[in-house]
């Protein structure tokens, strides 16, 4: 809107002028000089107020200025709109009536004078036939206030009050008089600022009324502001005042509107003050006057914010203006033609604003187009046509105006946050066939449109012939005349100024275009239309290029070029356009790296080929001499690479220490005919132990090459980069030793369209996955250095292809051919255990011996880890041959069921040598199972980088070598029991203290019992064991004394081995051992039961192995087996039976109720003598009945039925003699086999002896208490009958020996 005269397009707002307050700047409406000397001075005589209160009120009122409010009707809260200006004491009003111009004779009649703005007055530029100009618009907007607001002080001092009031009255009346003299109907309003709290309301009211009456003020136009009001109160008052005043202003404009309607209603053209004498002497026609009146009505309606009325009047004025009677009649050469066109523009703009105000957006867009089309049609038909720069200038202006209007209207739906591109049409046009453009788009589009027209303007201007561009003073008059009709110069310069010849500065088209484009761009960016914004940037850059503003081009395009979504998304034509534009700018600016990068990218055949371009990267810096030599690093994805690359491994997996084939394929997609590119080096980054492969260019390289078509296959030998890495990275020696770089040399010249294939043998070092990660191409020339990294991706066109030869390829079926799985190097270290045993036994110290045999070809430096895993793992220690290992490092750490020994250095093991490692485990108590893992980690002295691992797992079984069962049999103690009544015996012995042993023996005077313990222990070992000794250990309560003595041989024990002592036990054999136990209580009084804990101690050793005979004899181990607890000294009476054969020897038991006749004894060798001993350990006197049943098997002598009385703590015995009878009927057999043959056997007899407790009537069990007796199933006692001596003398021998 800038190009239209100031104020011509702005929205009209009533002017409020304040008077009587001092202000920083007073309002100067800038009257034209001609009018200034006729102007009417309105002056207040009173001094301007300078109080705080007045300033506060004034500044609030000034802040409510509505000039910059958005032009829309939404702001309902605001009930008034004022343009507020401040004059201190005086201001000028334009004259109401123009003077008669000088030199015109006064006519006889008094001249009718008109407003100086009217075409009727000769002083007006419109005189005599002009329509309307900006001055009139300014008249109401700037010059004549609708409301004049005067500030006065209301003095409360009673003595001064009347005087002051009178002064105010005089001043107001004076102002009123001046205003009415001027002829304007500006409304006067007065604000009275009271200086202190007034004493009484009535008095003030009266004073106010008085002032109002004397001044003839409207009651609505007098305001009183009390002093010391708070800011809020003041604001509230000011709001009320302004609202009231707005009503007054609206009234003022309504009067004016009514006036102009009245004039239109007269329907006649007024006569000018002086009839025109110059020009056509034509005056403004009636139609013209009607346009004026309609326009005025519309403007006044706009002041009143009655937009509908304003729109109607504007449209009427517009139609009339462009109607047949007016516009059509104005000759196009006349300046009035352009004036009319200008007025049409103004009216159209104001119409558009009204439409936007009312929210009729589509109607606005349509109205915009309609005006454009209409004017175009006029210009085409009557004017100078639309095919010249002037028209395009107007078009651009027209689009800009629309953009500005939309911006000014601040349409809420267009707020950038809504991201709306365009607005939906109003409901009333919804169903119609709408032009898409009629949906109102956001200002960015309008600015873009303006920019496009500006471009067209420039093109048309540049198309002008040189003759036309000559200044008029230089060209012949005839030509000037013809030019005048060729070019439309409505609001734009003459041809010679538009595009002057001789390179004089003309219109800066580029500047205008760029300005428009940048504004559009910012609008698009606000709404996240990034691509559109990029497009505008591109257009902008094109303009800047034309303007040779290279630096700005680079600045604008560099970021676009860098992140270029066009390239990534495949809009290559756009990317290409941008690249070329940027390149040309970068060349001039001297940004060498950018030029190289762009040239590098443009080599790709994806872009269209420029015909006369060299496409030689080495020449891209021609004409530039950048210092220092630029180095360009291009990362993957930054550019569209013109090479397709892939790296494939020949095998899917390989082993560490071996090597595999790798193939690097580089395919050039450069333009055909572009210069060959010589890569200085290629670097392949691998993820794995080999970190890099570097190929250097060597033109005359000795590599074998095969060529077929466009494919060149070369085998490149690679050198290990030990010293090469040193050279390449002198600064990082420590890095170089970890990661290996391989070096090779080949011819790296890449012709366009050629495919280079490099076959390399890559050693694999570390197990894991080795993957080709990225590739860096390096180009080095005298002028620059370039590095382009590329990742090996899936997408490149040459992936998955393996070149068997230059002419033959095959497809690789693997998923990722650019990686190889490296398996660990197979270890050749052997871990052996020659003397491994299936079983180890508890309670023996275990020594395990391992041989580590190095079967590698070179010496190995090894470390050993040992893990023992199981329940309750013991700590163990390791011993290595030929090494002094300190304790701490060679002893394992136990934690959580795991015993671990780590990192025992084994030193170096020579090739095909072996090393012995011994592990020592302490004796283990329980049978258990452990997993023993030996791990030897080693590396070869020739290849330090590759760790190798050998692992061996052994299972350690630890078992109990022996198990045993036990039987405790009662025996009759031979010594007599101490008598309860024998006081002396007890006392006598206790006093005898003669020696330690004797005393311990003698102090025990209690009951004693004899027992016989039989243990049968079995060997559970898997091999022969040598049992050195068997013993028992006894443990009883302290009141009981126990002795044990081992019987020499138990029946069935294996023969003693003469060699090593002890006896050899075969696996799964049972050996029996017997022990006599004698227990005695310490005192007779103690008759409580006692317990006996026995443990069996077996001393044994392994049988010495014949293979390891040279060794020391194996150690003797002790295995202790716990025997279940036995109970002794029961208080119940017990019946013990013993047996003896042959002649009854005089027994210790003296009590025998029926002595055997001695005559029988010598002749009866089979005579069996049965002693029955009844023990009464209780404190009671007991009576027992004994009954012996007669039997067919034997004859017996002794009491058949008898009664025994037992004193407390005493025992008695009864003796029977038995003679077996039935043995001759049945043949004798070995006693062991016939045990369970029947109730009565040939050599066992069963006497049915019943012992009954008389008192309790309870049968006591008879317990066999000697060899040769046993119990049968029913609990009866069986007696063994020795066989006949005559019949079987051997057995006789045997049995007799046993009896000993």
């Amino acid at each position, binding site marked *: 809107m800038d190009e239209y005269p100031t104020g011509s397009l702005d929205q009209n707002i009533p002017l409020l002028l304040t008077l009587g307050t001092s202000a920083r700047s007073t309002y100067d409406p800038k009257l034209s000089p001609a009018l200034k000397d006729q102007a009417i001075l309105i002056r207040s005589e009173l001094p301007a107020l300078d109080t705080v209160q007045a300033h506060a009120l004034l500044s609030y009122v000034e802040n409510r200025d509505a000039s910059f409010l958005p032009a829309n009707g939404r702001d309902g809260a605001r009930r008034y709109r004022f343009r507020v200006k401040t004059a201190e004491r005086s201001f000028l009003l334009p004259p109401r009536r123009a003077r008669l111009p000088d030199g015109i004779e006064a006519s006889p009649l008094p001249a009718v004078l008109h407003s100086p703005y009217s075409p009727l007055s000769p002083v007006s530029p419109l005189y005599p036939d002009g329509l309307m100009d900006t001055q009139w618009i300014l008249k109401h907007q700037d010059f004549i206030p609708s409301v004049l607001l005067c500030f006065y002080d209301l003095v409360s001092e009673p003595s001064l009050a009347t005087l002051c009031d009178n002064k105010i009255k005089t001043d107001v009346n004076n102002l009123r008089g001046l205003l009415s003299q001027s002829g304007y109907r500006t409304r006067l309003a007065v604000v009275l600022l009271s200086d202190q709290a007034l004493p009484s309301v009535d008095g003030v009211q009266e004073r106010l009324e008085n002032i109002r009456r004397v001044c003839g003020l409207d009651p609505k136009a007098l305001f009183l502001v009390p002093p010391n009001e708070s800011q809020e109160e003041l604001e509230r008052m000011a709001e009320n005042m302004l609202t009231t005043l707005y009503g007054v202003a609206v009234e003022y404009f309504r009067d004016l509107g009514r006036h102009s309607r009245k004039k239109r209603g007269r329907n006649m053209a007024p006569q000018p003050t002086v009839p025109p004498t110059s020009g056509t002497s034509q005056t403004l026609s009636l139609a013209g006057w009607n346009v004026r009146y309609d326009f005025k009505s519309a403007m006044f309606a706009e002041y009143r914010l009655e937009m509908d009325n304003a729109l109607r009047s504007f449209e009427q004025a517009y139609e009339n203006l462009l109607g047949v009677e007016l516009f059509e009649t104005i000759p196009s050469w006349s300046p009035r033609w352009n004036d009319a066109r200008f007025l049409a523009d103004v009216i159209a703009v104001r119409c558009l604003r009204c439409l936007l105000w009312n929210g009729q957006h589509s109607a606005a867009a349509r109205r915009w*187009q*309609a005006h454009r*089309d*209409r004017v175009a*049609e006029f210009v085409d038909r009557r004017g100078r046509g639309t095919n010249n720069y002037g028209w395009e200038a107007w078009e651009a202006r027209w689009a800009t105006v629309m953009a500005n209007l939309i911006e000014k209207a601040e349409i809420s739906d267009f707020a950038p946050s809504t*991201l709306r*591109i*365009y607005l939906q049409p109003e409901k009333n046009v919804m*169903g*119609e*066939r*709408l*032009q*898409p*453009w*009629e*949906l109102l*788009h956001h200002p960015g*589009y309008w600015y*873009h*449109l303006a920019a*496009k027209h500006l471009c067209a303007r420039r093109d048309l201007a540049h198309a002008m012939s040189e003759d036309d561009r000559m200044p008029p003073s230089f060209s012949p008059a005839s030509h000037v005349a013809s030019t005048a009709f060729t070019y439309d110069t409505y609001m734009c310069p003459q041809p010679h100024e538009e595009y002057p010849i001789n390179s004089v500065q003309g219109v800066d088209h580029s500047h205008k275009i760029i300005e428009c484009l940048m504004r559009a761009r910012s609008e698009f960016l606000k*709404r*996240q*239309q*990034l*691509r*559109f914004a990029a*497009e505008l940037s*591109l257009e902008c850059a094109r303009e800047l290029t034309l303007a040779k503003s290279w630096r700005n081009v680079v600045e604008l395009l560099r970021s676009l070029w860098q992140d270029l*979504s*066009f390239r*990534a*998304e*495949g*809009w290559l*034509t*756009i990317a290409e*356009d941008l690249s070329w534009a940027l390149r040309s700018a970068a060349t001039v600016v001297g940004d060498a790296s950018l030029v190289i990068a762009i040239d590098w990218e443009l080599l790709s055949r994806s872009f269209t080929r420029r015909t006369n371009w060299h496409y030689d990267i080495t020449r891209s810096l021609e004409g530039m001499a950048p210092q220092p030599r630029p180095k360009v690093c291009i990362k993957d994805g930054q550019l569209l690479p013109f090479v397709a690359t892939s790296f494939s491994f020949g095998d899917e997996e390989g082993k560490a220490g071996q090597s595999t084939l790798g193939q690097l394929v580089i395919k050039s997609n450069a333009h055909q005919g572009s210069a060959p590119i010589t890569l200085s080096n290629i670097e392949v980054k691998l993820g794995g132990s080999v970190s890099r492969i570097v190929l250097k260019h060597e033109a005359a390289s000795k590599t074998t090459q095969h060529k077929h078509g466009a494919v060149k296959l070369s085998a490149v030998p690679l050198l290990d980069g030990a010293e090469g890495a040193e050279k390449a990275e002198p600064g990082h020696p420590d890095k170089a030793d970890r990661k290996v770089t391989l070096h090779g040399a080949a011819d790296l010249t890449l012709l366009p369209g050629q495919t280079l294939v490099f076959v390399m043998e890559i050693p694999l070092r570390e197990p894991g996955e080795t993957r080709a990660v990225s590739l860096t191409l390096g180009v080095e020339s005298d002028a620059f250095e370039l590095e382009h990294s590329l990742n090996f991706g899936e*997408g490149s066109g040459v992936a998955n292809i393996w070149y068997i030869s230059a002419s033959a390829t095959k497809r690789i079926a693997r998923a990722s051919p650019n990686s190889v799985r490296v398996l660990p190097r197979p270890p050749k270290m052997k871990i052996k255990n020659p003397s491994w045993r299936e079983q180890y036994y508890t309670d023996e110290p275990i020594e395990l011996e391992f041989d580590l045999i190095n079967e590698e070809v070179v010496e190995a430096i090894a470390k050993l880890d040992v893990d023992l895993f199981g329940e309750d793992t013991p700590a163990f220690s390791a011993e290595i041959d030929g090494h002094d290992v300190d304790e701490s490092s060679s002893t394992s750490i136990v934690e959580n069921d795991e015993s671990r020994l780590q990192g025992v250095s084994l030193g170096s093991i020579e090739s095909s040598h072996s090393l012995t490692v011994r592990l020592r485990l302490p004796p283990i108590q329980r049978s258990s199972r452990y997993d023993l893992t030996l791990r030897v980690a080693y590396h070869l002295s020739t290849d330090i980088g590759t760790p190798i691992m050998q692992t061996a797992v052994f299972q350690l079984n630890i078992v109990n070598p022996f198990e045993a069962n036990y039987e405790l049999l009662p025996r009759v103690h031979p010594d007599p029991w101490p008598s309860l009544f024998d006081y002396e015996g007890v006392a006598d012995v206790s006093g005898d203290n003669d020696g330690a042993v004797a005393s311990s023996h003698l102090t025990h005077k209690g009951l004693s019992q004899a027992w016989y313990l039989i243990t049968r222990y079995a060997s559970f070992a898997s091999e022969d064991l040598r049992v050195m000794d068997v013993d028992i250990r006894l443990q009883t309560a302290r009141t009981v004394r126990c002795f044990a003595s081992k019987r020499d041989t138990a029946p069935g024990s294996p023969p003693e081995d003469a060699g090593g002592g002890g006896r050899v036990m075969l696996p799964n054999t049972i050996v029996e051992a017997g022990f006599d136990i004698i227990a005695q209580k310490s005192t007779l009084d103690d008759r409580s039961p006692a317990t006996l804990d026995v443990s069996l101690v077996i001393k044994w050793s392994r049988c010495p192995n014949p293979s390891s005979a040279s060794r020391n004899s194996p150690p003797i181990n002790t295995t202790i087996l716990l025997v279940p607890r036995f109970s002794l000294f029961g208080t119940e009476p017990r019946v013990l039976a013993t047996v003896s054969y042959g002649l009854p020897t005089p027994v210790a038991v003296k009590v025998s109720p029926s002595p055997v006749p001695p005559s029988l004894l010598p002749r009866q060798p089979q005579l069996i003598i049965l002693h029955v001993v009844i023990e009464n350990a209780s404190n009671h006197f007991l009576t027992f009945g004994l009954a012996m049943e007669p039997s067919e098997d034997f004859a017996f002598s002794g009491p058949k039925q008898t009664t025994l009385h037992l004193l407390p703590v005493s025992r008695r015995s009864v003796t029977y003699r038995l003679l077996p009878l039935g043995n001759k009927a049945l043949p004798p057999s070995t006693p062991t086999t016939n045990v369970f043959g029947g109730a009565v056997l040939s050599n066992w007899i069963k006497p049915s002896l019943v012992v009954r407790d008389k008192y309790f009537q309870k049968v006591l069990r008879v317990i066999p208490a000697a060899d040769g007796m046993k119990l049968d199933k029913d609990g009866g006692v069986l007696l063994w009958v020795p066989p006949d001596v005559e019949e079987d003398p051997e057995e006789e021998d045997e049995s007799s020996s046993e009896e000993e």
Partner: protein
Amino acid sequence: MATAIPSIACLGVIGRNNNPLHVALFPSFDPATNSFAPVRTPLQFSLLLSSTLDIFELRSRHNAANSVGLSGDFGLLHAVDERLAAYGFETNTGTKFVVIVDMRGRRIDGAVAAGLVDGRGAEKRIGAAAVGLREGEMKPVFKAMQTAYIKLLQNPFFDPDEHSPPAGLGGKKITNKKFADDMRRIGENWTPGVTNL
């Protein structure tokens, strides 16, 4: 009197990765030279098509936020200026169809156009009267384009992933001749009011 009516200036098929799959340009009638010529250069059409992607993104974000717009017809994307307007359609696999309409691409006799111009007095008087577009008048075009695209997808030798890789950027253009012919037919045959292509 001759009246300008809309015609298709450009048909664009844009892949899931915002990559151009197919672009067909159609000449417009130029009253100055009385001949047919494209109104813009191919580069400018590329820029126009790419600028619609902004709006596709805005709309789909907006639709996702309001959970509407499952139909895929985006209607008018924007009017670039008074002549060119872009309409868009997105399939549920992310392929986008863009129609750029030249509002003054054809010129027909005024009498014929009278049926299309809906009695707007202002326009009747102006020589270069233009016929607008109703909402939904692009539907047959999109339908035809989708049919052609589906036909293309049914071709066993056509690999959609090659043209719009699922992960990554860019993709190949569609070179199928039949598809190109279909596009050409659609672009040439459409005029306002056509319901079946």
